[in-house]
């Protein structure tokens, strides 16, 4: 039986292997490659997406677990050409080096700020997403900048 869900706002169904991790569905079938493969065991966070608004590691999320739910990927974060405040902050703080982990970092940061609009330094540093290039200090600055921008927006 096909799995039905919403992907970046669009009704979607998939009638292949429902045990396939959401990550590989996104990358190989939906051809949304912004969600990255890093470890396959939920240890690095490069594959972070939102399921019903909450950050989730798609490499260990089987498709059957998202039946009827709403998935948002990095490609669905901006509002058309208007970037999300977190994406904008990432550009302004010049965060990315290789950039491979950054989609996952951004999705995790959006989730953090949704739950904690005014995060402490400790909360900002609590993201467990790995960055091999060592961009953490700029990631933390960008989260703070985005928090301020979001406060202004609201």
């Amino acid at each position: 039986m096909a799995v039905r869900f919403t992907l970046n706002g669009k009704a979607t169904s998939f009638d292949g292997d429902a045990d396939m991790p959401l990550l590989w569905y996104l990358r190989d079938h939906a051809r949304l490659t912004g969600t990255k493969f890093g470890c396959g065991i939920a240890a690095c966070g490069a594959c972070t997406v939102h399921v019903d608004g909450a950050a989730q590691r798609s490499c260990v999320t089987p498709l059957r677990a998202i039946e009827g739910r709403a998935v948002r990927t990095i490609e669905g974060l901006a509002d058309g050409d208007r970037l999300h405040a977190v994406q904008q902050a990432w550009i302004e703080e010049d965060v990315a080096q290789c950039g491979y982990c950054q989609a996952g970092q951004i999705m995790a940061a959006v989730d953090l700020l949704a739950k904690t609009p005014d995060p402490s330094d400790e909360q900002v540093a609590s993201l467990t997403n790995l960055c091999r290039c060592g961009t953490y200090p700029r990631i933390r600055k960008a989260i703070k900048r985005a928090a301020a921008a979001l406060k202004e927006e609201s």
Partner: protein
Amino acid sequence: MSAQLTRRAFLAIGASAAGGLLLRGSAFAADRPRDAAEASAQLGVLVRIEPDGTIVIGSRQPEMGQGVKTSLPMLVAEELDADWSRVRIEELPLGLVAIAEEPGVTWKYGPQGAGGSTSIPEGWGDLRPVGAEARRLLVLAAAAEWNAEAATLTTFAGTVKHPDGRTLTYAELAPKAAKIVPPKDPAPLKDPAQYRLIGTPQRVVDAREIVTGRAQYGLDVFPEGALVAVVARCPYFDGAIESWDASEAKKIPGVRDVVVLPGPKPGEPYAQNLATGLAVIADDTWSAIRGRNALKVSWTKGPWADETSAKLDAQAAGLLRGKGKVVRRDGDLAGAKAKAARTVEATYRVPFVAHATMEPQNAYAKVEADHVTVVGSMQMPSGASRVANAITGVHRLKIDVRAARLGGGFGRRLTNDFVAEAVLIAKATGKAIKLVWTREDDMRHDFYRPFGVHAMTATLDGDGKVTGWAQRLASAAKYYRRADVAPGDEWQSEIYPDDFPAQCVANLEYEWLDVKSGIARGSWRAPAHTANAFANESFIDEIAHATKQDAVALRLAMYGAPRELAYTNHGGPVFDTGRMANVLQVAADRIGWGRKVARGRGIGIAAHFTFGGYAAHAMEVSVAKGGEYRIERCVCAVDVGRVVNPLGVEAQMMGGTIDGISTAEGLEITIRDGRVVEGNFNDYPLLRSARAPDVEVHVVKSDKAPSGAGEMGIPTAAPALCNAIFAATGVRIRSLPIRDQLKAASRA
């Protein structure tokens, strides 16, 4: 290929270069249609000016996070007097052109290969002239238009100005400029005092693509019709397939085929792939992974079946009791020992570590009768071209190679073993193949940073002056099964004979001993510098404490008067003791060296010269009673000559520092029964944000020719941290990683 040939080849101007920025048969959707290029004007192979005034600059170097896609075009744009906000960067495929001389091809765009922090120094030499030449052609076109003397015209932000105030834009001039035959003499370069772009902070040019998920990495390349390959590789060093059964694997929906992938024979150079294996070919990645899981394979263990990390430690210790190859001998060390008022000795151990790029290895390959396409994340696209040529026999000019954006490099992607695999599988199956490595594949089939044990000895006179120095290193050399390294020369990757304190200590010996191991080794960010800086800079700290000297003053005394010493290893031709002393002093000043710190706190410092750049770290740590420690402050001072992009240099230093801390704190690859134990980030714990300090980066202003910056931030991080830990606790870390050594010491 001579430097001159290279230069002539890629400065070539004219109609033949039109379309030079396009990749034929590209797997990339982002490539522009050919007619768009023909409507614009090509000024040399790296610069194209569009009718709307956009200046397109080709980026020739693989971008792996070191920032060259931003910094190298800045060199061109500066001399061109382009308006940076109107510049668009296009990634170039591997560019080769035919020549009569061996090896039959040379660079079209200049050298393409990212390693050894060479992109900036090379680009400083050969990319500024590209911009200057394009600018000259535009000025000549304007001079013809106005019937004016070219020398009276000036340029600014994409326009040429006449002394009477008239202006013409580059877009207006470009079609005419493209038809001018360039003068023979080189176009003059700017006086650096006139720079408007070089030295200004510029953000990563494709940041928007990255934060929206549109940036394309090797692993993202999956053209219609391609099949995915996942390989079961023999986990044993030089092991082989004993028997296999793919019947269950072939029952998995989506699995199309299973093919044997021969590996190199034991002892043969790694010219191609690293290990023998079975490739599962499937419609998508998930099916290929499931297919691989369903394979039944038994492996023969090969000649290294008994190897363990503990046995390698014992082998190194045994070697150090004997004699190795002395690779540098200055003065009379035995005499210095005989006369010494004091001798200090210590031994340091540095483990194997993996590159663990966030993006696992991968490659896309399509092999046709007389054409090959390779796309992937690679540091050496020309090496990929050679590998594909060796496997298929297709002429190198008919092999399209494109380095996608790399999800990290750190030296892992200098080798093209994954390209070889993809090409071998594509050739064997006749299909376009997207090869995917899982994290476990990546962690267990790497070219690891060498393991080594450094036995250090220093002699001092009655005044505390270092009179003799010996470094005896037993290591499993990075130069391993390399066709281009003569047997007996393996030490050259382990000890750089001109490294400090050579020429600063009168009586000195560097000696290398050959640890035999079956594990593959390779270049890991700042190769031997990470190991040697840890040994040297920890040891100097030990000498300072043992002889009650200030660790900064002792280093300054060893550097001696500011002067240039000959440095024939990579990063030369000179090592400037004054520049070295300066970064040390800057780091010391910024951390507040010498101030009193609270109980349980300590400050450590270290400095090192890496590939032409000078760096120092100073760190302050706090250590709690149970041995938990924290980096309270982290200062990095660096002198990389003239800075092209300050934001980029800061990023490299910050990242290198955190890489150094991450590796020192927790990372080690261990061996059991002739295979790698660690497999994923659960047992190879890269540092996470909570433990990564902010890094205060201080960049020394300099008008010296620039070095790169990718590797200078890493070697001194580990010794500065360990020296700080010693200052706080009296516990000396002599073996990396640190892990729970402090906790163990606090229990003792």
